[in-house]
């Protein structure tokens, strides 16, 4: 399940990107999930067939790490604590590992729907 994003628009304009970058970093640091050791893609809701399929397509290592991060975050949440500072997710660690797979699956589904809705017209015989 991908969400609409302004990021591509901003990334295309270097001046805007320079202007927005500190703001986005400030925002992500304050969102709090990094302090629980999570990544942004861990927050995508799982309850849809597309995401379920994408989760199955993760490599075994990525799938294991994802479950580990979630269990650790859940424990922290139960204990009302944050992780020690050195275990926080670093900005470069917070890369999209799941959303490219979801986008791929959405493209597949879209293609199937388009092909199924296709109108076939026979070429008219030439005079």
């Amino acid at each position: 399940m991908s969400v609409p994003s302004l990021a591509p628009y901003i990334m295309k304009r270097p001046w805007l990107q320079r202007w927005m970058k500190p703001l986005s970093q400030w925002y992500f640091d304050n969102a709090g999930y990094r302090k629980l050791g999570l990544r942004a893609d861990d927050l995508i809701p799982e309850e849809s067939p597309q995401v379920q399929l994408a989760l199955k397509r993760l490599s075994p290592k990525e799938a294991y790490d994802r479950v580990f991060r979630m269990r650790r975050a859940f424990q922290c949440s139960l204990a009302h604590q944050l992780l020690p500072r050195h275990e926080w997710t670093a900005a470069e660690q917070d890369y999209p590992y799941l959303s490219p797979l979801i986008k791929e699956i959405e493209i597949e589904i879209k293609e199937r729907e388009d092909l199924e809705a296709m109108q076939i017209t026979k070429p008219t015989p030439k005079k």
Partner: protein
Amino acid sequence: MISRAAIQRQAQRALRQSWQQSARGYASPASGSLAYQQGDANGIKYASRDYAGPVTTLALVSKAGTRHQILPGLAEALERYAFRTTERRSTLRIQCESELLGSELLRYHTRENLVVGAKFLRDDLPYFVELLAEVASQTKYQQHVVNEEIIPLIELNTKQRLADTLALAQESVHSLAFHRGLGAPLHPTSTNLYKNYVTADALAEYAGGAYAKPNFAVVANGVDHGELSKWVGEFFTDVPAQPTVEIKTEQSKYYGGEERIAHASGNSFVIAFPGSSSPTGAFYKPEVAVLAALLGGESSIKWTSGFSLLSKAATQTPLLHVSTKSNIYTDAGLLVTSLNGSASDIRATAPKIVETLKAVSQNISEEDFNKAKALAKFKELEFASGTQAAIEYTGAGLTRDGKPYQINEVASSIDGVTADKVKQVAKEALENKASVSAVGDLFALPYAEEIGLKV
């Protein structure tokens, strides 16, 4: 009232259409011969034969059957991966487009070859040449496709084959006769084994060998040779010139032996002797085809058990299915007699089959011999005039020996067979080690020793 102009238009169109249809039928000169023309486009071998008709069969024949696979299960996986997502289009798109053009995609593998091709209308040739080139050089091998589509398909196929005792016995007899190489199972028999081996990386590596210039040929039936050479030259440009992984062909060696497998869902008994290689290979013995026709077992007409020697031997057990086939491979062959039916029938008939073979090694009546020769020749010609077999043999001949399978030579070599040569083959078969495989009720099925064979 219908205007005169409208009628005229319709009539003109009808006329044009009927003329076009008949013109299409005669569009290409019917060469009348079954011979292939061959060519070479930047190192890619291709062959074609043209005959009148609106349908073309085009295939890429690659030296990538189970015999050559580097890891178990790869040949079947590569077969099932043909026509899946490429760099330019998705699986679904390929299927839809080929369906809309009115065509049939075909893919299968044998012990030696992998055949990926299509049957389509004559005018669509460029599209399908491009598609085959794309399959060969631009397929994306992805792990999730292997997990979600390829392995479940192989699994289902394996399950289906596990219930078929005759198929099991044939696999077993090949592995007894040739051990590795030709003896590798045509379809994986155990579900767990190949899962460790069939991965996207292994497939990509194997494809780099299978779809490299020296290892495949493009064969077509029902196209203009000039047209084919033009499109092959245009589209097959990204194909690697050197294989990424070496596809080895070791000279097959015959071993022989006996294997017995307990099975609850049927009884099969297969006896095999060393046979003949294909006509393009070095060990071609046309007399083996005549011996196979002489022994026979199946009837070619209805409501009779037939006139072949084995069907006479099996008259007491009419429900038993007996057949003899000469399996030919490029550098070896296997003459296989298979019995399929109830265990008691097999027990009663198997010794008679060996007796028949012994009788053949001593004496063949003139009439039987002539009948067998005619049948062998007919079978060979009929086999090769069909497109599927001809395409595979031609492609294999081109990649291995640089010459296509020429039907005229095969027919004339069968003409040259004498009764003495056939007797000699039967005698050698009895003197050497046989390969015998029994699948089913092992209490009732006989041992090779009991029916008088040496293993």
